């Protein structure tokens, strides 16, 4: 195959990579998108955000049906056809993935299927099914993402030990499921399997679940999980794992230091994600990596190699699709000679558990650890009419505020639909809104969005639907 030259080559077609490729093409660049998977969209679309949300939606239906009994509505116990559920989930993935391919074609972005390997700072070898394709480029954007970590001790070569990738394929509904790691992936997928009928045990080495978020926001999720999961165990480690017939034998050690032997039908390992930096040929470039393998970048997404940019999970930081997409814009704008930066950009985080958890900007915990003086205003959802009509008073909206300027520095929400509500928080922080700005913007009634306005009113002590002593004039 003759070598190809392109202005920009993008490695990896996830939400960072395809966003970068499309944006660069929209700015008139000649773009080549290299993806080893035949389906575009990356982890997010094929093995992450999208399929998990499809399953979570299905799972929620089951739990909501069950919970409606006290409202006088009962259904028979759900009949679950896994093949159909999987097919429906896959149809969503396929639709979105082919949508990405279609958009690439529309923009004239050339897609090359194969694994890319840097031969130098401006050349790439792509192993395609048809053979080697050499590519020279002006600039490269590395967006190869991350994959689920599977520590050696857990890698039994047994399909009953799953990472999130396999868990999303729902081959079966295990009777007993052990989830190792109480982060967002473990909690989300644990919820799915719990709703489908598995008895779920979560073990977490740290003292709680979702440790990045403020504890008051995590509490409702923990409560709900305690009710729906068989057990949550903290300060607990899995010390042994082995195959025992059709079961997985595990030994855990909890805070009491007593070893506990158990047998599970399946185990989900969700202990974090690692960068897909292996076998990229980065050693042939000037790109530098940190000790964990993430590529070092500056706030313009430039690596140590002047021809190579890195975005998304491979560039470290929070591993979120929308962070990758934002970095895609920054990288492309920098290449186009614009003054762009990812510094100070507010990246919201959402955990799609039941109830949902979302936050953005400064958390209360972060303020404390950094010694930033803040004031916090909270509005409990028990006082929200809309939350009660959803039968979900287990929510909380809170604002983290700079008392001097009254600027909103952080927003945290736990509760039904928190993932949708957080966008207003992002806008507020990005716009430099003050608490008063939020309090004076009329929010529609009855909606959950009112909780943002009312938490702002709590700050001044005049929230209509809750009583808080007056603190600010």
């Amino acid at each position: 195959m003759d070598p190809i030259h392109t202005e920009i080559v993008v490695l990896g077609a996830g939400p960072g990579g395809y966003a970068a490729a499309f944006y660069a093409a929209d700015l008139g660049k000649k773009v080549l998108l290299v993806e080893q998977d035949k389906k575009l969209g990356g982890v997010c679309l094929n093995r992450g955000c999208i399929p998990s949300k499809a399953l979570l939606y299905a799972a929620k239906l089951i739990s909501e049906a069950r919970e409606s009994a006290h409202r006088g509505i009962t259904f028979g116990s759900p009949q679950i056809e896994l093949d159909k559920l999987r097919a429906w989930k896959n149809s969503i993935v396929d639709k979105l993935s082919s949508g990405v391919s279609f958009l690439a074609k529309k923009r004239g972005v050339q897609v090359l299927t194969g694994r890319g390997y840097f031969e130098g700072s401006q050349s790439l070898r792509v192993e395609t099914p048809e053979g080697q394709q050499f590519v020279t480029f002006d600039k490269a954007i590395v967006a190869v993402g991350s994959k689920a970590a599977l520590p050696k001790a857990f890698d039994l070569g047994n399909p009953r030990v799953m990472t999130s990738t396999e868990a999303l394929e729902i081959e079966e509904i295990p009777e007993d499921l052990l989830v190792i790691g109480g982060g967002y992936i473990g909690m989300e997928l644990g919820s799915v399997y719990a709703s489908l009928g598995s008895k779920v045990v979560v073990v977490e080495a740290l003292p709680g679940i979702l440790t990045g978020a403020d504890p008051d926001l995590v509490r409702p999720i923990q409560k709900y999980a305690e009710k729906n999961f068989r057990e949550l165990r903290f300060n607990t480690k899995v010390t042994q794992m082995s195959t025992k017939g059709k079961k997985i034998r595990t030994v855990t050690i909890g805070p009491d230091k007593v070893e506990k032997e158990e047998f599970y039908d399946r185990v989900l390992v969700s202990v974090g994600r690692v960068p897909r930096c292996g076998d990229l040929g980065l050693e042939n470039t000037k790109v530098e990596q940190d000790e964990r393998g993430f590529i070092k970048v500056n706030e313009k997404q430039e690596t140590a190699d002047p021809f190579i940019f890195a975005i998304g999970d491979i560039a470290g930081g929070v591993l979120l699709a929308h962070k990758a997409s934002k970095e895609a814009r920054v990288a492309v704008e920098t290449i186009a000679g614009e003054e762009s930066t990812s510094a100070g950009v507010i990246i919201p985080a959402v955990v799609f558990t039941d109830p949902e958890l979302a936050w953005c900007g400064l958390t209360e915990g972060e303020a404390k650890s950094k010694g930033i003086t803040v004031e916090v205003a909270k509005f409990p959802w028990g006082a929200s009419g809309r939350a009660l009509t959803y039968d979900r008073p287990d929510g909380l909206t809170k604002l983290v505020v700079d008392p001097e300027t009254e600027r909103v520095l952080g927003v945290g929400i736990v509760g039904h639909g928190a993932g949708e509500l957080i966008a207003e928080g992002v806008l507020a922080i990005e716009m430099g809104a003050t608490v008063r700005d939020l309090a004076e913007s009329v929010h529609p009634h009855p909606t959950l969005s009112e909780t943002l306005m009312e938490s702002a009113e709590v700050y001044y002590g005049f929230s209509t639907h809750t009583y808080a002593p007056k603190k600010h004039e």
Partner: protein
Amino acid sequence: MDLKLPPLGEGVDSGSVVSILVKEGETIQKGQGIIELETGKAVAPVPASAAGKVTKLLVAVGDKISVGQPILSLEAGAAPAKPAAAKPAPAAAPRTSKPAPVQEETADDAPEAEEEEVSGPEPASSPTIRRMARELGIDLRKIRGTENGGRIVMADVRAYIERLQRLAAQPRSGGSASTPAKLAPEKIDFAKWGPIAKRPMTPLRKVIAQRMAESWNTVPRVTQFDEADITALNDLRKKHTDAYEKKGARLTLTSFALKIVAETLKKHPVFNTSIDLAGGEVIYKEYFHIGIAVDTEQGLIVPVLRDADKKDVLALSKDLNDIAVKTRDRKISLEELQGGTFTISNQGGIGGGHFTPIINLPETAILGLGRGAMKAVVRDGKIEPRLMLPMALSYDHRAIDGGAAARFMIDLVRGFETFDEKQLG
């Protein structure tokens, strides 16, 4: 990509476009002059920070533009990509002199003088405003937001830019002296006494006019005259001319003058100062950057030869030739016109005797050299024909007293008369 007006340094943040040196569709090289910009200091070309094809010109002759403003759009296409797309220069050099607080007692109602030191987190503003600030090179911390929580909105940015423009438009003379340029003189119809031709003042002429008037109006200037016997020096020059030519340098009287002046300045540092009346300080510069008045077709331009004290006569001769050629070809950069500490104006090449040079602000002294001429001089009781160089030292009497000037002159004359041949290498 757009090429933007780069930081100009030394407190200059805007200027007027005098001419446009490239055309749409033209392919330009990195470093090539794209426009000529007139600032309060000079007229100088602005070099392209990247190569490519000009797709669109974004400024017109006469436009007033500020640092960070796009000048033209470039299609970077053809040229091979250079490493790390031209990093913006490390934000404008720190200013040495604080702008004078205009009038202290009325500071309250006057528009607040530009706060120089800014630190701390950025104030609240929308992403749109922040992007615009990045593109224009504006530090948002210098802007006072008027909305809740000090939030900066578009109107605040606009007000800030307008203020910058007003500041840029004011002559930076310090003090609230009435601006004489504003006194529109009575319009006279010269044609009633005979035929006339009107030619527009070139932008450079306007700059010269403004700067000369500023110097004339602010500096109590004294000019000290003397003559130096350069008979021996001239012999030295002739003797070494060929050797220098072989090394690719032209040995001229100005080369000697640079060396001698630099050494004399070291002995008399007050001639290497600037004064800051508002701050009540005299700024002694520990570097010796000598400005050389160059006569060009368009008018007088004064490029600066750096660190004259650290260079030997050969290096000075080469540098001198380089900057003179660059200046005549109008390829000198704004950077090379700034930072001078003392100026030499040598009219000897053209002719003439003593004259009274005008001080090149913010310097405090200037040396004018005339043409060396044979004169009858009394030496050891005998009249001898000697080659005498007319010298005129103008100095700012605010900083320098007559005695100091006389002593400076004596050392300077001695420098010319006792120049050591060893210094020619």
